[in-house]
């Protein structure tokens, strides 16, 4: 451990192409917002984006914006602005960072993309509480502030099995959004267009799954940290041709790496599974921390959460409902543990790291005894690190480093 030699991390060549389609996406949103050429909908990350896109909305994802605030480390300065108006430092730091960004008028979009001055102004806010209640509270604040409607789906939670009753419920809720959205957009829903959008989302999801599964190779051609960046199109452009085309390029590159025996981490020795959110403001540091220990964090629940295999163009509404319900975060610990056990086996994992994110209880699965249960069942050691997705006031770099180094030592010495 603590090798002085810096391990080289391989850059993914397709990154430039991804940056281009992400830039096009943000400029398109900006145009819709500033010219009024199209209505703008804000949508939670696993909200009914397919429906919104099929109805002609330009779709903005505040969680994506919040992650950008985290990755640029702007969030820690902005969160206190929301704290000061009554939004506690203990609640979702995506919410507080994003509201802080609005209050101060500071956004990474304006810094990264010339000509963009602000986040696109919404005509409607559409949530799905399948992730957590905070998304509804988040949109509720903007609804009052901007005078736009906030509508959405209130999802069942903690499901072991997704039943017809759950799907009926969510299907009806999604269908009930249509008249309101038609009124805002001024357009009738075209079912054929919805089918096409759902089909593209399905295609995107299949390709993204294949991209992530390239990490079953030894050495793995990508890392979790690469995944958090390259999932961008799967998050903001699902249901579009651009996302599908991009993942074909990325997949081809990763498959070439496998053929050539090229690993994302030089001389990969230890394979780690990451459970929980990334620490956005520490992606590079964490990536280097692991790669310098010849450890590759190569699979995660987080990146895999944008795999929706239920999408079916033949039955768009019900399949959307099923896809949004089958999501890991919606499920019970019984289901989650089975899922993680399968992932550990599939990716041949040596250790699990749980990120206990201070402000994100729904993505912190270490709080109800899961690490202990899974460790007892699988014999695979685990480590819980304290931190946060966006609020770096909750992060101790030195403690993280010592914990991770000690964990890798433990795995190496146990082998």
């Amino acid at each position: 451990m603590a090798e002085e030699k810096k391990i080289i991390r391989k850059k993914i060549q397709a990154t430039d192409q991804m940056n281009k389609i992400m830039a096009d996406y943000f400029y398109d949103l900006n145009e819709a917002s500033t010219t009024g050429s199209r209505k703008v909908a804000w949508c939670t990350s696993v909200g009914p984006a397919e429906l919104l896109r099929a109805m002609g909305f330009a779709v903005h994802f505040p969680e994506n914006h919040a992650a950008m605030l985290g990755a640029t480390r702007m969030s820690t300065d902005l969160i206190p602005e929301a704290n000061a108006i009554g939004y506690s430092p203990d609640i979702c730091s995506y919410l507080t960072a994003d509201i802080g960004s609005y209050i101060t008028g500071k956004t990474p979009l304006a810094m990264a993309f010339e000509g963009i001055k602000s986040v696109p102004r919404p005509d409607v806010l559409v949530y799905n509480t399948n992730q957590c209640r905070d998304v509804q509270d988040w949109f509720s604040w903007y609804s009052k502030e901007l005078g736009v409607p906030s509508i959405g789906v209130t999802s069942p939670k903690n499901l072991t099995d997704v039943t017809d009753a759950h799907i009926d419920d969510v299907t009806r809720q999604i269908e009930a959004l249509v008249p309101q959205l038609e009124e805002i957009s001024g357009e009738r829903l075209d079912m054929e267009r919805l089918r096409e959008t759902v089909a593209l989302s399905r295609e995107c999801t299949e390709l993204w799954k294949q991209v992530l599964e390239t990490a079953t190779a030894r050495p793995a051609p990508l890392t979790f940290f690469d995944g958090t960046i390259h999932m961008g199109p799967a998050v903001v452009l699902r249901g579009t041709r651009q996302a599908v085309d991009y993942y074909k390029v990325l997949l081809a590159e990763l498959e070439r790496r496998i053929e050539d025996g090229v690993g994302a981490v030089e001389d990969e020795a230890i394979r780690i599974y990451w459970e929980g959110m990334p620490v956005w403001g520490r992606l590079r540091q964490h990536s280097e921390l692991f790669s310098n220990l010849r450890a590759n964090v190569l699979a995660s629940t987080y990146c895999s959460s944008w795999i929706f295999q239920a999408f079916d163009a033949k039955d768009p509404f019900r399949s959307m409902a099923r896809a949004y319900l089958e999501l890991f975060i919606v499920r019970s610990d019984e289901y989650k543990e089975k899922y993680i056990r399968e992932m550990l086996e599939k990716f041949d994992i040596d250790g699990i790291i749980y990120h206990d994110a201070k402000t994100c209880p729904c993505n912190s699965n270490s709080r109800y005894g899961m690490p202990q249960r899974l460790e007892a069942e699988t014999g695979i050691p685990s480590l819980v690190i304290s931190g946060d997705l966006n609020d770096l006031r909750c992060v101790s770099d030195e403690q993280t480093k010592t914990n991770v180094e000690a964990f890798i030592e433990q795995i190496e010495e146990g082998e």
Partner: protein
Amino acid sequence: MSEPVYVGLDLGASRTKVVIIDSGKRLIGHAVKKTGTDFAATALSCLEASLKMAGKSREDIAHAVSTGYGRANVSFITEESKTEIGCIAKGCHHYFPEAITIIDIGGQDNKIIKVDRDGRRSSFKMNRKCAAGTGAFLEEMAVRLDIPLEELDQLARQSEDMVKLGSYCTVFSATEVLENIRHGRKLPDIVKGLFYSVIKRVLEMDSRTHKVVMTGGVVANNPYIVEMAEELLGEPVLLPEFPQLAGAIGAALYALDNKK
């Protein structure tokens, strides 16, 4: 060059510990100093003192390993480092070669480390962000109560009616202490309450599966804490000869194992 020796340097957040062992794993020199702000100077000073005690010189050092928060700051002595978790485990297994649960109470953090009978770590936990239950907590409280740190142990032993402190936040605990002072509670009762709070915070971090070994500066300087822990656990606690040196000894043992 006389008989080669092996050095372990533990640059902790609060104290720097250096030990010298010979090839028979015997402890022949050691020193402890406040770490301060110049890690390298303190480490060097401890190293010189340890070598003097061992009757050795720098030329006799066959290999050295560093550990602790400042482990990367002594590359002029050694480039090999290990985490303090690994070193404490190795140091304790040397003294107690059986399955053990180690409770280390350090200046900046606490650790519970489980080691199997072959010396392999099966798990470890460090305290979360909060300092409650660490040496830093006792240092902060000693300052607030205007008591020299080294007098805490004797004061706690004089307690007849311990004050109970409920919070796991250092700031809240300080407020509780102030409240007890305001209500006229005796100093020894408050200090024993602080000790009790430290033990409770540490024990609630993890389960104990085997015999308990305690290490760290807080344990070394406040033996009453060990007695209180034994009472709470309902079983005797094992202590290495120098509880504060466990990490440094582990580092020296790694140095011996990894000699070129």
